[in-house]
């Protein structure tokens, strides 16, 4: 199942993406394939990762974690641990109970949602394996680890609750006294019963979105510090700003006495969009002990206790006419919350609620989601968050519908998708898609893929009964990105807004500092923001520096997740630049003794129309700094802030095609070719876009073929190492062919749509559709994910009877 990486091809792709980045007149930097300016320090490690931070007198904390899925804690004795060499302190949950508060959930999706207390350290009961029950603080990491074995904990086992369907039965053991049903959330539009009544075709399926473990390269890490009055928390987090607000609320440390810093962060994929027990406990410990405290998780600890992703049971049905035109869609979802509701746990499946209709027109749509408690690690956002699940369901159903009708899967989609002329289009789920061209992306993908030739080869292999069968999978997807208009979040009962903040400072020498409220953790914001600023202010790309991730520096922000950074944060940067330019225009006009309206701004200079007189923006910056000769009433500053709140989501789309070879003797699947044509609107940096697509594809393919978090019948997590939880490496993935169509977003002046999650959302159904397509002649109509060789083999056996 492995492929060698073709270095020549990689080099060619880089060269091609450089070509795509040819400067466009008037848009010098935006669109150029700039190398990422942050990479040199990130890849050489000459930077600050949280675990690199060493503070004087720093202590190290290690956690005793529950070996049981569900149990009452009858005794915790840390006294022996306290006596060990190097140990400074040891605490049980009871020791911290009075001050530890609860971990927050910011998304009460219904008024009657069950929101159980979530102590950072368990006091009475543990409800998932890995839950912290005690901690040891020592002078180094090794002594802290050794001392864990001296902590005595007695448990009285309680029944594990593992299966969502059974958890909802009245006689099921309970995770919390309030019962296992966290909430029921419904959405309906159109008359679904009418749509299904007498429908010539109804396709009904149950899909399992297996539980996934987000695997960021950098493990979680925290350092907490205090001077006795104020606190600093360094954390490998995606959300320093949200975290500060939440920690202020939950710990009682006043917000202005708490500084949160996300140093360089090595990936998150949603897993660091959280307020974690360890962050809260590190703060409490430093408050108690007066010394800095560090914690860095091990990979096994992380697999247990980084919030998990997906884990939904989808019962879906699609009604269509004999011509394949869709009439209605019903979705009945069980979403595994795990043991507690964390930051946005209940909201994740609902982010998918608006996406089940995909790019298609239909008359009716019914959606119900039941959130279910189990004795597993809580789930929460993982790359795509709700949208991959929705896209998977509709794209799998479209392939099944095509099979039912004997139509080509591309043709079925063509008959149903929103045509280019129909935008803006109000969907059945209540969103307004601003723009798109599904036909253009699909046609380009078909051409790059060699669709007809592959279909011919497929027919030939079927004909001769080749043990290696070819399958072709289609996924035409869209997603909602750019979280989010604050009004919409309010209507969904989310606890915060969706705006973003930026400050732009002109320095006396004409260099520019940008402070962004977005918090990059590998995406390349510093490069993209520099490109935007370079064009907006007419300064060189190299003259822009971007600061981020420190609430002491960037006081205001909503951070990075939901493919929002460019669409919302990039827009805030652009708006702030607009203000800087307008301030500079006033001063330039004064210096040039012209009317501001007579100035045009091109290539970094204000020019008086019709004369040769000009001032560069750098000259204006210096004159502003000197402040010797400013117009009356004008402050000596060009610096400007902007807080941008989007009017609408953005809707990237694309067509992904996957060809797989399935070895019917062993069940092994090999991806033969993969084409991704994405439309992410205007592109600021094609290299970054391609990189995001590649990484996204790897994770989406990971869900389709490799990854699954497995709990055994007693509720123990079996996949605690990377030998058990398999993620694909480059050697397991094909050479991706990527291309783009460009239909600018109409809802923001940059015309951008977001790309962070596209690859993950689109690819999973493309791959699974391909696997099923390979085996359809043998009577296989589904293979549960991940489509491992054993699962594929079993599906073949079962279909054969």
């Amino acid at each position, binding site marked *: 199942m*492995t492929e060698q990486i073709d270095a020549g091809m990689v080099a060619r792709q880089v060269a091609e993406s450089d070509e795509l980045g040819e400067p466009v007149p008037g848009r010098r930097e935006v669109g150029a394939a700039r190398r990422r300016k942050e990479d040199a320090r990130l890849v050489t490690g000459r930077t600050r990762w949280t675990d690199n931070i060493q503070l004087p007198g720093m202590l190290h904390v290690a956690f005793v974690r529950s070996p049981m899925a569900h149990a009452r804690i009858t005794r915790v004795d840390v006294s022996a641990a306290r006596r060990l060499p190097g140990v400074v302190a040891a605490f049980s949950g009871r020791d911290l109970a009075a001050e530890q508060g609860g971990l927050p959930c910011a998304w009460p999706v219904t008024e009657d949602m069950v929101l159980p207390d979530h102590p950072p350290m368990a006091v009475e009961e543990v409800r998932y394996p890995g839950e912290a029950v005690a901690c040891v603080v020592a002078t180094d990491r090794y002594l802290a680890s050794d001392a864990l074995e001296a902590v005595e904990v007695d448990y009285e086992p309680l029944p594990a609750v593992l299966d969502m369907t059974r958890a909802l039965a009245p006689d099921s053991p309970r995770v919390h006294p309030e019962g296992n049903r966290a909430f029921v959330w419904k959405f309906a539009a159109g008359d679904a019963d009418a749509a299904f009544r007498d429908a010539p075709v109804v396709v009904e399926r149950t899909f399992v979105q297996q539980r996934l473990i987000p695997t960021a390269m950098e493990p979680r890490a925290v350092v907490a510090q205090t001077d006795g009055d104020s606190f600093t928390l360094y954390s490998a987090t995606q959300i320093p700003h949200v975290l500060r607000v939440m920690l202020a609320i939950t710990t009682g440390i006043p917000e202005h006495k708490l500084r949160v810093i996300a140093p360089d962060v090595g990936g998150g994929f949603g897993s660091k969009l959280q307020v974690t027990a360890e962050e809260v406990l590190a703060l409490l410990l430093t408050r108690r002990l007066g010394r800095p405290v560090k914690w860095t998780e091990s990979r096994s*600890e992380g697999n247990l206790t980084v919030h998990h992703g997906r884990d939904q049971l989808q019962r879906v049905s699609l009604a269509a006419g004999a011509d394949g035109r869709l009439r209605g869609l019903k979705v009945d979802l069980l979403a595994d919350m795990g043991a507690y509701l964390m930051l946005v746990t209940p909201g994740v499946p609902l982010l998918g609620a608006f996406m089940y209709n995909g790019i298609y027109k239909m008359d009716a749509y019914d959606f119900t989601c039941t959130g279910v408690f189990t004795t597993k690690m809580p789930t929460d956002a993982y790359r795509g968050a709700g949208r991959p699940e929705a896209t998977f369901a509709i794209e799998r159903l479209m392939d099944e519908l095509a099979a039912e009708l004997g139509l080509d899967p591309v043709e079925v989609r063509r008959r149903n998708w929103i045509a280019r002329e129909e935008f803006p289009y109000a969907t059945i789920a209540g969103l307004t898609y601003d723009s798109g061209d599904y036909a253009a992306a699909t046609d380009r993908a078909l051409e790059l893929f060699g669709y007809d030739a592959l279909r011919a080869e497929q027919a030939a292999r079927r004909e001769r009964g080749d043990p290696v069968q070819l399958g072709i999978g289609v996924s035409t997807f869209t997603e909602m990105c750019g979280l989010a208009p604050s009004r919409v979040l309010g209507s969904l009962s989310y606890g915060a807004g969706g705006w973003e903040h930026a400050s732009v400072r002109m320095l006396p020498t004409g260099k520019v500092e940008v402070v962004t409220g977005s918090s990059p953790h590998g995406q390349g914001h510093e490069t993209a923001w520099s490109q935007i600023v370079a064009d907006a202010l007419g300064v060189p790309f190299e003259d822009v520096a971007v600061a981020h991730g420190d609430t002491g520096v960037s006081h205001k922000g909503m951070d990075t997740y939901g493919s929002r950074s460019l669409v919302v944060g990039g827009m805030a940067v652009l708006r702030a630049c607009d203000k800087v330019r307008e301030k500079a225009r006033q001063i330039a006009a004064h210096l040039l003794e012209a009317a501001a309206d007579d100035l045009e701004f091109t290539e970094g200079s204000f020019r008086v129309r019709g004369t040769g007189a000009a001032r560069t923006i750098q000259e204006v910056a210096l004159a502003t700094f000197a402040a010797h000769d400013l117009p009356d009433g004008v402050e000596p500053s060009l610096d400007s802030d902007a807080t941008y709140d989007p009017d609408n989501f953005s809707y990237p789309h694309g067509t992904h095609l996957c060809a797989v070879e399935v070895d019917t003797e*062993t069940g092994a699947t090999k991806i033969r070719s993969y084409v991704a044509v994405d439309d992410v609107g205007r592109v600021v940096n094609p290299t970054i876009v391609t990189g995001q697509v590649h990484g996204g594809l790897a994770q989406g393919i990971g869900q389709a073929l490799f990854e699954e978090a497995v709990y055994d019948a007693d509720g123990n997590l079996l996949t605690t190492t990377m030998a058990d939880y398999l993620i*694909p*490496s480059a050697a*397991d993935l094909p050479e991706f062919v990527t291309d783009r169509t460009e239909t600018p977003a109409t809802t923001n002046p940059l015309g951008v749509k977001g790309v962070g999650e596209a690859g993950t959302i689109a690819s999973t159904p493309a791959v699974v559709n391909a696997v099923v397509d390979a085996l359809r002649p043998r009577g296989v109509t589904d293979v549960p994910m991940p489509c491992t060789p*054993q699962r594929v*083999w*079993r599906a073949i056996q079962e279909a054969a009877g």
Partner: protein
Amino acid sequence: MIPPAFDYVRPSSLPEALAALAEAGEDAKVLCGGQSLLPLLRLRLAYPSVLVDVGRLPELHGVREEGGHVRIGAATTHDEVLRSPVVRAGCPLLPLATATVADPAVRHRGTLGGSLAHADPAGDLPAVAVALDMEFVVASAAGERAVPAGEFFVDYLETALRPAEILVAVRVPRLGDGWGFHYEKFHLTAQAWAVVGVAAAVRPGGAGGDRRVEEARVGLTNMGPTPVRAGGVERAVRGAPLPGAGAGGSPGGAGDGVRDAAALADEGTSPPGDLHATPEYRRHLARVLTRRALLAAAA
């Protein structure tokens, strides 16, 4: 992921190492490349009192021809095995299997002796050892003894090595001319362990349309608590017709005789069930992969 405390010694000669082991008693552990032992320590699945590092003992290094066999020092790294012309010429099956072990980083530290002494049935090299009838040269304070591969692997992670013994080298008997080799590894990702693996050596005879298997050796990875020598297959495949040159190895292109013999591959095995495969699936894979390995080796 932090190992428990232990002492560490690195003797400079084999006698010193043997003495250190004898002195430390039952709780001592030999350390070579650390690629299997350190993960166990980090997960706190083992609590040795002292690690005796044998990685740099001169007596455990070197690859040379000796009479009818190739002698490979136990501390020879996987990477050295791959690069050694003597190994490639004298026992080509070993580098074929070694090339599938993990990744370059692991192959630069992990050793042949460590792999064999660790005796993980999912490891790729024990199956090669039984297929090739390797002989294990084992030293203790009392002197040296030789253990045949068939007796070396006792149970899951258990070998005939006694507590104060060190594996010094393996002797790989040279097969005569005309043998072909193949290691067929079935794994889920490029760096993962074998779900099932098949080490095959085949000596074909005849020519053109009348090629047949004269003799075959087959070792199975991960089909039981120890590596398995598939004697039933070896006997049944003798004389089986082979497809004409060039066609071998491609699934479906098999000679029926080879297929029938390969169908015996799981006979007498007791494959494990785990996260990635049930025993039943492993049995099925063993049959399919054995056929492929035999055909590929004969091609």
